[in-house]
């Protein structure tokens, strides 16, 4: 598998460099080579210098300049290596985590699945135990410190308002709202809470008690009771007036009719008496 081969090669190179390093008598830490080709040490390897000189001489350009440029480049390489070597083991970890491990056979997959349940398998497919660095790195983890993902940008107020143009709530929205409301809906803990719940449902009267609750009536009470003003079309004396005053009295006590209906009653009487006027005159 390609990846495995390249990994093996890398390991070999690392080992080779290490051995050569030791051969040159430098520090014992495993050197991390980011560039594979050039050997280095402190100070610059005399072989390198020779090689640079040879290159410079083979090129038709200004020998001195070329040579100094090459040597400067080598030095730069060396410095970067040193810097990166300081962050030694972590780089290896990066290297390892970047590598894709080939998918194993089903047998191994089964083992992997069961390992997922165990605590030791930290990253899937890679049998790496929970980081040995983890105790320290964990304690340094905090919700206050950290970099954000930087994927989103904060919406400006105009876009926010534009987004607020709501369409009709769909069934998804309604059901979600119900689900959310059901989270904190606990059974009442005492009688008052039960009454609160009943009031919300409409089972209980609302305090302070309003005895006109639920009644839709456009008119005020005085329009029901003081119906005298509708008697203007009738004669001021006589049995008709007497009769109509009794009618008014009854209507004012009637809670079941609306004002309109009462006025219609009176008007009916008015019409009736108008029609029968001729008969009444005869009497």
């Amino acid at each position, binding site marked *: 598998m390609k990846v495995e081969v390249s990994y093996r090669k890398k390991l070999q190179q690392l080992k080779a460099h290490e051995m050569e390093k030791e051969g040159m008598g430098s520090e014992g830490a495993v050197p991390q080579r980011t560039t594979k080709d050039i050997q280095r040490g402190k100070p610059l390897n005399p072989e390198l210098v020779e090689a640079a000189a040879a290159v410079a001489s083979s090129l038709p350009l200004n020998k001195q300049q070329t040579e100094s440029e090459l040597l400067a480049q080598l030095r730069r390489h060396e410095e970067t290596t040193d810097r990166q070597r300081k962050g030694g083991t972590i780089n290896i970890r990066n290297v390892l985590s970047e590598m894709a491990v080939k998918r194993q056979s089903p047998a191994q997959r089964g083992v992997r699945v069961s390992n*997922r349940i165990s*605590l030791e*398998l*930290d*990253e*899937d497919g890679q049998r790496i135990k*929970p*980081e040995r660095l983890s*105790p320290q790195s*964990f*304690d340094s*983890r*905090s*919700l*206050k*410190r*950290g*970099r*954000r*993902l*930087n*994927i*989103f*940008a*904060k*919406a400006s107020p105009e*876009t*926010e308002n534009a987004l607020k143009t709501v369409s009709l709530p*769909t*069934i*998804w929205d309604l*059901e979600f709202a*119900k689900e*959310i*409301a*059901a*989270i*904190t809906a*606990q*059974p*009442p*803990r*005492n*009688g*008052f*809470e*039960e*009454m*609160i*719940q009943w*009031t*919300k*449902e*409409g*089972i209980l009267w*609302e*305090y*302070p008690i309003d005895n006109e*609750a*639920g009644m839709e009536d456009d008119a005020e009470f005085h329009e029901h009771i003081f119906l005298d003003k509708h008697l203007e079309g009738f004669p001021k004396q006589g049995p008709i007036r007497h009769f109509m005053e009794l009618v008014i009295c009854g209507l004012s006590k009637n809670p079941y009719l609306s004002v309109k209906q009462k006025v219609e009653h009176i008007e009916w009487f008015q019409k009736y008496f108008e029609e029968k006027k001729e008969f009444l005159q005869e009497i």
Partner: protein
Amino acid sequence: EEIVLPRKKTWDKLAVLQTLASTVKRDPTAAHYMFQDDPFLIPRNAASFRLFSLSKESGRNAAKFIIKQFPQYFDKTFSEPNIPCLMPETLTPQIEGVSEEALKERIHLRMVKESVDLFDQLLQAGSPVSLETTNSLLDLLCFYGDGEPTPEKQEEEKQDLEETEVNASEQKAPKRQVQRGLQAAGSRENNNAERIFKIMPERNAHSYCTMIRGMVKHGAPAKAHDMYIELLNERHKADVHTFNALITAIPYLKERFLERWELAKVFLNHMAQQDVQPNLLTFNALLKTLRRCGGVGRNTAISVIKEMEALGIEPSLATYDHLLSIFYRGVDLHSSGIISEVLNDVEKRNFTPQDPDDANFFVTAMQVCCDLKDIKLAYQLNKAMEKGDNWKFLDVDRLNVYWSRFFSLLCMMEQIDVVLKWYKEMSPSLFYPTPKNILDLLQALDAANHLEMIPSVWEDMKQLGFSKKKLLALMSREQHPEEVQLVFARCAEDIRAVQEQTRREQAALDWSSSMLGSVVLLFSRAGRTQDAWTMMERFQQISRIPTGEVMDEFLNCAVRTNCPDEAIKLVKLAASLGLPSSQRLKSRTEKEFELSEKQKTTLGSIKSDGDSSDSDSDSDSD
């Protein structure tokens, strides 16, 4: 002088009641308000609590069902003003005929099958259905996933912790057939939603979005992803809910942790490109997916939180719950850094529910405190829970789990008087101790040498209905002052009575040898020789052998109470069982008792056959 009339104050209709309710505190000696009707029906342990509260709900639902089934008997309105929620609902569609209006009405009434039939009829008749109506039909189908909305059923078999079953009065909505949908995921090949989607002449973004959401909900994540790709190909924009659904489906789309995270980033980037603003639920869905990403989740969760902060989205309890699960579950972690920060944030705020997973926070947090064995964090968490309305996030099941974990932690970490104070306050009015809690309590009592409290604990345990074995073992382990022993003996007697009541014929078989031994010890130490002897006889019935300690103790008791007959019987028993200690017992009896001549001869005649181990004439075969 001007008289300035103060402006009239208008109060909310609930103001008076809320004020009154705030004056009432919890009574630690009473059961929950739900049960203060009939003392016989007050539950004694967690299981019956659940059962009774569910049955109360199911009674209400049965009544609603009757009203719904027979509306013709409930048409008189007595109350003025009318109470609509107690009256039968009119759910029959008014508009007849095959028309788009009729279809809209049926969709509104959530009649799935009729809507689909009507839609087909409309198409066959050749009259086109508008895009909007088709979209709302798709919404209906995708939400209910080809099933019908069923009336809520509060049977105990169907319960799992996610659903707030006790509060079904709030749930007029039918239960979602999620489990059925998941199982029927394979059968969604020819379902109506997809069929209608395919025959739509034109589709807009909404159609795609609702299909994606339906597929994710009913367990077809791969199809949802395909549909999303289709949506992208058609150059539509998905809305935030669709993205949330896709993010929740990620664990089903990819296996490896890194791939999951990569896919999540893909979705998030698409959101940014399509100018869709993420909301709280987006990030909660992301964290929920990261819960299933192991180490990758741990590395990336904090940057997700930072992103939320940068966008000005306040985390909800579900966010914190996911965080705690990412960092503390399944990992051997002993750092309390993250959880202290979480608690510091939580205790400052009064939360409102925003995510269905909010309800899990307190339980998870308490579990983490128990794992970390940190009592201070637990106190902090408890204070946060009692602040304002935060207690409402714990429904009855979660409440019990929360408190039992808290109590275990208390027993482990706190002084005994603090533990007892909490115990008296909290149980049984707020929670019912689990067997583990009782054992922890007993261990705490043991550690603090307060074993005289055990009889009162036993009283509680009797009500809770737990096993008596460990209790007996604890009681009989050591010698105790006289009064304590007497009380212990009474406990033992209670236990024996209970044990033997259960199955008359086979009462003896319920005993184990350790339990029997403990009971004998307790009786012996309290000087109840007769009772002790009755229990000794049981040993033969269960074919077990009493330990040397038990027999010695019995002999001591016999000496104290001056019952040489019992002692002789003991020696006989030991001999018949072929015990090596019978010789020792025999000599002890001879030494410590004032034996009559007859007794001496009886004693002498008992042969201790250490060799022959088969049972002799004394043993009864039951």
